């Protein structure tokens, strides 16, 4: 390497750099394969044909039911989920190649990041607009006027753009980012609680005249939208001074998401997300819990883990209230929400099991047998899942939909969920499905499909008494104690089978 006293050269325009890279890429691998273009277009057409009509009905139903709490809560939850997705994806990122070659090079950063910012703003406008339209479609009387449609679209787009602004701002200010994440979780839990509260109160339909006129809303929405665009322009101007590490970190995370999607290995995502969380977690002080030796060591470890992720509590409470919201819907939906929710609650401490499954070196250091490991690691998830089940089914019971000791049934199902969560944490998509399913568009690894149902299959078997009770809810008789006892016995049997089937050996080759 040499240094010179010459003045710094004029930075190359990123457009020229990209053009040059593109030329080199074409020279190396050729232009885009026409068959790939055909496949992508075919996939888009198939998606529109398959999902266009049902989605259209969701966004604009034939009949407006008037303003309702569940519809408004649903719209708000979709927007919060969109905010969450933006936060996880960056959103201001560059490709991994650009992060390696162009980010540390003297090219103007603003121009480099403009495509990502525009894509974020565009997707936020479209997503927000669709949500706004869906709300208008449920509120507006038929036939709807154009001002109502425009007010819905503009209002939703304005909210979407504001959320995008928040996500971009949070990316460059970690403390704000953490506050945004926690607030979003709390708001989501509060919204679900409000929906449940509405059900407990016997339903509430806000009067149609509670909303201002469509033209007034349209004016407000347009003003907010214009202000949001101006704020976005200001943010764009400030992009030039963004520190490299913020963009590099977000780009690496987005790249790993792309890797996971490409390799169809979703468990990779949870590992990445977990690493990012703990790398940025501050304020941890060594606890005396392990040193006190009052609990088995791995149980104490799980407790510490659960305690150090307080942000999950609002989500757990929120999901526990979800069964009450869907209790009047189809029974398969209720069963699905209960099974997935219980599994998610029991998976709160599954990080350590996943770590041991991918690299058992730490377990060898501990010198524990598999049997000891599973016995100790079942305790905390069983307690969390039991509390979740009691809250979830107890709330359904409190709304008056079901009668009998449903809270006890939820409590009894907790250990079953813990067994399923431990079983799920041990495997990755690539480790359970090596068989490729042939489709007209090419081979598809079965791992993803198996991974999606992995754990749920175990849980469906171990929670059979609860599932049968949920299926037979329309029958007039109330839940009796024998179902609870059978469920408790099956849960305990599941735990015993898991522990007994584990070998009395430490992890080896």
């Amino acid at each position, binding site marked *: 390497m040499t240094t010179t006293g010459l003045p710094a050269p004029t930075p190359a325009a990123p457009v020229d750099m990209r053009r040059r890279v593109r030329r080199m890429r074409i020279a190396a691998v050729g232009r885009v394969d026409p068959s790939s273009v055909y496949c992508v277009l075919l996939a888009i057409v198939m998606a529109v044909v398959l999902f266009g009509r049902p989605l259209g009905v969701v966004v604009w139903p034939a009949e407006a039911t008037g303003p309702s709490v569940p519809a408004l809560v649903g719209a708000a939850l979709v927007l919060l989920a969109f905010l969450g997705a933006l936060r996880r994806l960056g959103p201001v990122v560059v490709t991994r190649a650009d992060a390696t070659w162009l980010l540390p090079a003297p090219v103007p950063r603003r121009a480099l990041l403009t495509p990502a910012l525009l894509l974020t703003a565009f997707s936020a406008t479209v997503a927000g607009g669709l949500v706004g339209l869906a709300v208008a479609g449920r509120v507006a009387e038929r036939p709807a006027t154009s001002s109502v449609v425009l007010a819905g679209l503009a209002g939703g787009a304005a909210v979407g753009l504001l959320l995008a602004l928040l996500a971009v701002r949070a990316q460059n200010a970690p403390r704000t980012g953490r506050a945004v994440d926690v607030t979003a979780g709390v708001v989501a839990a509060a919204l679900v609680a409000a929906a449940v509260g509405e059900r407990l109160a016997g339903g509430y339909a806000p009067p149609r005249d509670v909303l201002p006129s469509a033209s007034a809303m349209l004016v407000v929405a347009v003003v907010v939208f214009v202000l949001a665009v101006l704020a976005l322009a200001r943010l764009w101007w400030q992009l030039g001074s963004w520190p490299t590490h913020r963009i590099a970190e977000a780009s690496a995370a987005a790249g790993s998401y792309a890797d996971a999607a490409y390799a169809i290995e979703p468990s990779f995502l949870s590992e990445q997300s*977990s*690493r990012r*969380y*703990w*790398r940025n*977690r501050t304020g*941890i*002080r*060594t*606890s005396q819990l*392990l*040193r006190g*030796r009052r609990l088995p*060591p*791995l149980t104490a*470890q799980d407790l*510490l*883990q659960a305690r*150090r*992720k307080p942000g999950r509590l609002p989500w757990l409470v929120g999901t526990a209230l979800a069964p009450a919201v869907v209790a009047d819907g189809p029974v398969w939906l209720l069963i699905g929400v209960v099974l997935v929710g219980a599994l998610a609650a029991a998976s709160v401490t599954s*990080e*350590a099991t996943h*770590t041991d499954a*991918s*690299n058992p*070196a*730490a377990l*060898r*250091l*501990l*010198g*524990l*047998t598999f049997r000891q490991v599973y016995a100790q690691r079942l305790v905390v998830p069983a307690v969390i899942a039991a509390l979740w089940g009691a809250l979830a089914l107890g709330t359904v019971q409190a709304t008056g939909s079901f009668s009998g000791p449903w809270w006890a049934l939820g409590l009894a199902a907790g250990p079953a969920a813990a067994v399923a969560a431990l079983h799920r944490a041990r495997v990755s998509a690539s480790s359970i499905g090596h068989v490729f399913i042939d489709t007209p568009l090419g081979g598809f690894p079965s791992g993803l499909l198996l991974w999606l149902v992995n754990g749920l299959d175990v849980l469906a078997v171990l929670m059979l008494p609860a599932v049968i009770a949920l299926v037979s809810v329309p029958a007039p008789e109330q839940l009796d104690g024998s179902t609870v006892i059978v469920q408790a016995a099956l849960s305990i049997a599941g735990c015993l089978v898991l522990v007994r089937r584990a070998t*009395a*050996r*430490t*992890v*080896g*080759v």
Partner: protein
Amino acid sequence: MSDGQVSATRDREMSGNAPGGNAVEVTGLTVTYGSTTVLDQVDLQVPTGAVVALTGENGVGKSTLLRCVTGLQKPSGGSVAVFGAPPESGPGFWRQVATTVESPTWYHGLTVREHLDLVRVANGEDPADGRIDEVCALLGIAGLADSLPITLSSGQRQRFLLAATFVRPSRLLVLDEPEQRLDTAAKRALAAHLRDYLATGGTLLMASHDEQFWHDVGADEVGLHRAEG
């Protein structure tokens, strides 16, 4: 060279059979990766209470040999005995053998000190008996007690791995280049600690590229090299 074959030689013969027998006995060990033979008919004896340093250029199979000794890799041929029995994955084996041959993925959310407490408690030892403090001070990581492992530098992680290995009880230490990424003072402290371990009856088998270091530990050198022709 280089036909892909290696052989083990002893620079210095160890005198006769030790009173406690051999802690490690490797006979005719062969390991192949595809068409490449990494270890070919290697013999090695490490008497109980002795210290042996495997040396040799990169790729001659030092780490592979250590992995076979700890039972983490199945050899293509030959046999390995540790304290008279084949290495296996039972708790009895891992109560006697501690190794840094593989680097663990540390648990997210546990601090450095909590990891060491966990290792000590899981192995049935008292985490508050001062042993952890002593090892942390020796390796210069006493100030990292509240840190999460994911935030450590590579050198700090190496010290942390050594600390986790030293705070658990063992009769045989199998260390893969324990001196790597350590500064000079830390290497001296580590050598002194390993001498203490040997003085209390422990056995040490390690791979090393640092001649000064294994001299300081007092190790016998076993040079692994690719066989000629």
